[in-house]
């Protein structure tokens, strides 16, 4: 049983490593900040979660604490990336759109908000 768990855990660790690497690759390859945030957040969240879970499985007495770290990561990572995306928009870095018909529904709300602040 222990060996099986260790092997499974090791596989999780490997998967986590791969996703962390993909996250790094994603933030290098994507064309603008929003896409980078997408790639970075998703990949590193899953990567971190799976790696830590893998460690928790390999050493079962660590599992509870590992789960706590996982929950913290799963909870805080999206919030920080959301805050980052919003901050980036507020700095007038509008998203990269592939063609001129690209959708940017946030612009209206953003402009309205700014108008309210000015008046």
């Amino acid at each position: 049983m222990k060996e099986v768990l260790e092997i499974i855990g090791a596989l999780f660790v490997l998967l986590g490593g791969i996703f962390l690497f993909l996250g790094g690759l994603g933030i290098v390859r994507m064309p603008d900040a929003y896409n980078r945030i997408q790639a970075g957040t998703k990949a590193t969240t899953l990567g971190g979660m799976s790696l830590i879970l893998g460690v928790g499985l390999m050493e079962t007495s660590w599992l509870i604490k590992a789960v706590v770290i996982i929950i913290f990561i799963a909870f805080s990572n999206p919030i920080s990336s959301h805050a980052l995306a919003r901050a980036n928009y507020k700095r007038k870095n509008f998203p990269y759109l592939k063609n001129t018909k690209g959708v940017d529904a946030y612009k209206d709300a953003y402009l309205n908000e700014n108008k309210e602040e000015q008046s």
Partner: protein
Amino acid sequence: MKKILVLLLLAVFGIYLADVLFSLEFGKQFFTDGVKDFYLTKGPLDLKVSNTITAIIVNFRGFDTLGEVTVLFLATTAMGGILYKKRHKVGARSVLFPSSQIVMAGSKILFPAIILLGIYVFVHGHLTPGGGFQGGTIIATGFLLMLLAYQDYTVSHKVLTIVESLAGITFVVIGLMGLIKGSTFLENFMPVGTLNNLFSGGLIPIIYIVVGFKVGAELTGLIYTALHEKD
């Protein structure tokens, strides 16, 4: 010109320092009868403290910690004195506009957890890594999260001052009680319990809790003072 001179000087300094330090071998101990062996045996055996670093910080070299706490206290005081702003107006804002609802809702649930994490860290200072300073810093970070997320979140300056002062007084009084009950300042006068239990280590957890509260209050006050510093 000055840059080149400084660079040359630094290069000479660095090479000399490296030359001296490289005569030490990495990962070896260079002395035979240092104080560390004493700490490493007395810590777990006499004081029943699992984390030797905590034993050193709070008991063997507890005086340093008193000084360290004082340094933070002074930094807070000095910051208030240097920025010489008259008492900020009631309702003065720490941030210009509130954060988005997502961050607000998230910080609501993270805040108690972070404070609890801080308390956990300083209560378990003698068992696991961490202690009063780290715990206090985490608590201050929790308050920082609230200050960042909300526009009108206020911390009572008076309460902070009282907590800080009371914690500092407790620290010194504990030390002086050692002087009265035992023979020297900061001497341990409580039963030490058994190793790796929560209630062990005599005075050490108590002092670390006090330090945790003090550091937390100090750093929160420091951040608060600084955040309200807007022209």
